[in-house]
């Protein structure tokens, strides 16, 4: 079983399945792809994230050895290496996915709009929705909280009326079943540090102070602005954008003590892509140190600087709205100046946190959580893939912040561990 259908979990699932073993892939959301599905382009090559991701999601979706359990969570774990008994709970989608053809008519006809989590609140979705047009599986779910049929006792029902194959099933119940598996790969990924906890940066109250995933959605061709950079408050194209690194990271006092590892690179990418889209705009990046240790990474950051992104060495102290702009008070310690920038848009590179529910799942799996809240590996140097529990392996950002190549590598490594285990103990 692989828990988590992001890029790391998918890699693990594919590697194991390609070797002839059955895989159950459990994903909390209605479709797989994880955080990567929200990204615009990837550093340092600027490949379109969706373009390199989609072949993977499709392959997972079609793989005869992979059983997809989306919209599902692990309920209970028993047993042991070679014979785990895992109870999986599938939330009711209120749509019969066997019948549903994924035509999308229900979403078109639904009248009720709510802010979309997938769009990080800057775009909307319907009360019946699939995460994206490329979703795998491309089947919708009904969000009961916002569906008028559920909230007003049977009124509306537009989706059911228009569905050509009668797939809407308001009576659907949650399902719980048990899977018997030999090994488990845990790849539950990350969330971002909530802006509410950054009160000196406005605590999430200012519409034009956004987090880095929101900016990814603005950059994304499939995002709410179709890839045009328009700020949330008034839809204007921002002429000056300030990127603030280490927003919550490296802050043992009030945030998290660790470095979130990927922000230096994605900020350089975001600033560069902004420059590509808004030629006459100015991007500023406030940083403390630049950590660009990967292959081609330093070159990429240098490219961002050469193409006109102005790097300012100092941490931002305060952000507040002023005359339709967002005032940023920072320092440039290299010149010894305090600086203020009246920006049109501010992007906070908020810290990477283990995804919500990480500690609950760890408890069910009886694996350890480290000081920072991520899954703890059996040994930080020589056993980075194993959890402390036999037969349970770690992959992706749930074990610690990491970028795509690292997450993929760890997914493959976890698969290799599972295959080695099976080769010695279980015949295919």
């Amino acid at each position, binding site marked *: 079983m692989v828990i988590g259908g992001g890029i790391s979990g998918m890699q693990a699932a594919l590697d194991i399945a390609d070797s002839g073993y059955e895989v159950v892939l459990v994903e909390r959301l209605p479709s797989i792809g994880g955080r990567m599905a929200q990204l615009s382009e990837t550093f340092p090559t600027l490949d379109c994230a969706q373009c390199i991701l989609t072949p993977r999601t499709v392959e997972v979706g079609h793989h005869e050895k992979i059983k997809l359990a989306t919209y599902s969570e692990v309920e209970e774990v028993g047993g042991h290496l070679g014979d785990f008994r895992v109870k999986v709970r599938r939330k009711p989608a209120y749509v019969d996915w066997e019948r549903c053809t994924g035509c999308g008519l229900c979403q078109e006809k639904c009248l009720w709009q709510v802010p979309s989590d997938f769009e990080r609140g800057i775009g909307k979705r319907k009360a019946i929705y699939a995460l994206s047009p490329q979703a795998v599986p491309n089947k919708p779910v009904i969000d009961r909280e916002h569906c008028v049929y559920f909230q007003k006792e049977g009124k509306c029902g537009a989706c059911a009326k228009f569905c050509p194959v009668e797939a809407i099933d308001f009576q659907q119940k949650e399902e719980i079943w048990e899977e018997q598996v030999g090994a488990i790969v845990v790849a539950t990924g990350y969330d971002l540090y909530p802006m509410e906890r950054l009160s*000196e940066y406005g605590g999430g109250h200012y519409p034009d102070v956004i987090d880095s995933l929101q900016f990814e959605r603005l950059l994304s061709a499939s995002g709410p602005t179709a890839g045009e950079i328009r700020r949330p408050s008034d839809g204007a194209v921002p002429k000056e954008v300030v990127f603030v690194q*280490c927003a919550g990271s490296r802050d043992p006092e009030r945030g998290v003590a660790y470095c979130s590892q990927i922000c230096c690179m994605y900020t350089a990418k975001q600033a560069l892509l902004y420059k590509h889209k808004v030629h006459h705009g100015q991007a500023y990046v406030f940083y403390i140190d630049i950590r660009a240790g990967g292959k081609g990474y330093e070159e990429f950051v240098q490219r961002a600087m050469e193409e006109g992104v102005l790097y300012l060495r*100092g*941490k931002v102290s305060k952000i507040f709205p002023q005359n339709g702009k967002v005032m940023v*008070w920072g320092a440039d*310690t290299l010149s*010894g100046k305090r600086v203020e920038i009246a920006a049109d848009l501010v992007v906070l590179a908020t810290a990477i946190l283990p995804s919500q529910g990480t500690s609950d799942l760890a408890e069910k799996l009886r694996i350890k959580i480290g000081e920072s809240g991520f899954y703890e590996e059996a040994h930080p140097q020589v056993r980075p893939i194993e959890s402390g529990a036999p037969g349970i392996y770690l992959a992706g950002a749930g074990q610690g912040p990491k970028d795509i190549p690292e997450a993929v590598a760890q997914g493959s490594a976890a698969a290799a561990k599972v295959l080695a285990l099976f080769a010695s103990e279980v015949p295919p």
Partner: protein
Amino acid sequence: MRVRLSIRETRGEFVKRVEEISGQEILACNQCGKCSAGCPAAMAMDLLPSQVLRLVQLGLEEALTSETIWLCASCLTCLSRCPKGVDLPRIMEALRQLVLRKEGDRLELSALPADFLSEAPQLAIIAGSRKYLS
């Protein structure tokens, strides 16, 4: 001119005294600059607050001659935002104390305008005396 650094400065008496009086670990600061970015009084300072602290980290007593230490209003903005919890207002106080304890008063109360003194609240005069008199 090059500043010669050696153990005499970096582990010298000066650093030790500042750490003692302030109760702070001077090297805990990673020079992120957030204190300077938010310091309300920095506009009048000759050095940014983080630069004064940097001089102390290097063991350089010229930190004591900076106007900055007298312009710190102990408003605690830097402390409340410092990622490392470094109590810079205490370090500034330690630097002021090192000067005051050696050189005496920085303020002559009798030289202040009478109108000002008659209007200023008691706590301004008391706080000012605490900060500027030895």
